[in-house]
């Protein structure tokens, strides 16, 4: 089994798994969606809100803001030594106080320590007119995607089988119907031969084989090689998210193994 990053940016990754199976990659996908812990605002105390939005809507919008997550410094509140009362190693406090006329941005949330400053400072939370005020205190804690979507680290995660395009040279009459049919423009005619430009771009739509009257082109997915791509919301980097997911899977299997002893 091999892992290769085809593309790796801070918040985006395209990963190729080799010598694997769809079931295994799917378990990684599901772990990444539901089980990676992440920091998000959970409790909001509103002291003054004369804006156009209800307290609940503001609290909801605050909850969706991605916060930087240093997993080595944090515990789940339930499992913390403070027994859920809230201490610096399980709860991060933010304050916000603004008066109109202005737009309140996520960057206006002030943490106790600058290491917890929000990643994306340009998220509008509410717009205040003249004399409108918003004063609140928020507590952030760790959670996982299976509790609420605000604790989901990855978004738009999915995988596909590695595309394989087979062309029967004897049947092909170079009519170029497949070249025109391909929505990704990956087929071309080179030296009297249909060639594939960038096979990883193929989306396995089979438009080419449907358009070929001679039946000379065949597209299939190779289930032993899988391309997975995902984005993160900025709370963890793409690389860290995958590593964290593998760690969690490992831990789960280790617990299962112990049951047999």
């Amino acid at each position, binding site marked *: 089994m091999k892992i290769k990053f085809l593309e790796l940016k801070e918040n985006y990754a395209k990963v190729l798994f080799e010598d694997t199976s769809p079931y295994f990659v799917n378990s990684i996908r599901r772990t990444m969606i539901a089980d990676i812990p992440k920091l998000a605002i959970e409790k909001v105390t509103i002291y003054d809100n004369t804006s156009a939005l209800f307290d609940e809507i503001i609290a909801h919008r605050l909850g969706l803001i991605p916060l930087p997550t240093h997993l080595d410094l944090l515990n789940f509140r339930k499992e913390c030594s403070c027994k859920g009362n809230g201490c610096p190693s399980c709860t991060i406090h933010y304050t916000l106080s603004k008066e109109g006329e202005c737009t309140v941005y996520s960057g206006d949330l002030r943490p106790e320590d600058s290491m917890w400053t929000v990643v994306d400072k340009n998220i509008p939370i*509410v717009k205040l*007119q003249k004399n409108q005020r918003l004063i609140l205190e928020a507590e952030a804690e760790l959670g996982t995607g299976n509790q609420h979507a605000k604790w989901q680290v990855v978004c738009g995660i999915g995988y596909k089988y590695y595309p394989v395009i087979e062309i029967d040279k004897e049947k092909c009459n170079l009519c170029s119907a497949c070249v025109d049919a391909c929505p990704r423009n990956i087929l071309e005619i080179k030296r009297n031969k249909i060639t594939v430009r960038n096979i990883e771009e193929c989306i396995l739509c089979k438009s080419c084989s449907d358009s070929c009257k001679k039946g000379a082109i065949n597209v299939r997915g190779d289930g032993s090689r899988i391309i997975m791509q995902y984005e993160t919301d900025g709370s963890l980097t793409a690389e860290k998210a995958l590593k964290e997911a593998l760690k969690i899977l490992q831990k789960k299997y280790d617990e299962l193994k112990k049951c047999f002893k």
Partner: protein
Amino acid sequence: MIIPVRCFTCGKVLASIFEEYKKRVYIDGEEAGKVLDELGVKRYCCRRTIISHPVFIKDGEVKELIDEAGEYE
């Protein structure tokens, strides 16, 4: 009302790019699809969330409903 913080379907943060989108599409008149491509909005769930968000233009400014809503006591 006010732009949703995240895409309803996939959870990508969209609110922070909406101000640039508003300016480029509704004021400068650029093509929406091209602007979304450049802002890195790839999936069609996110694209519909941004495209279908209602705005109106008043005094040469792009406004959302919340800009008006706040004026009523």
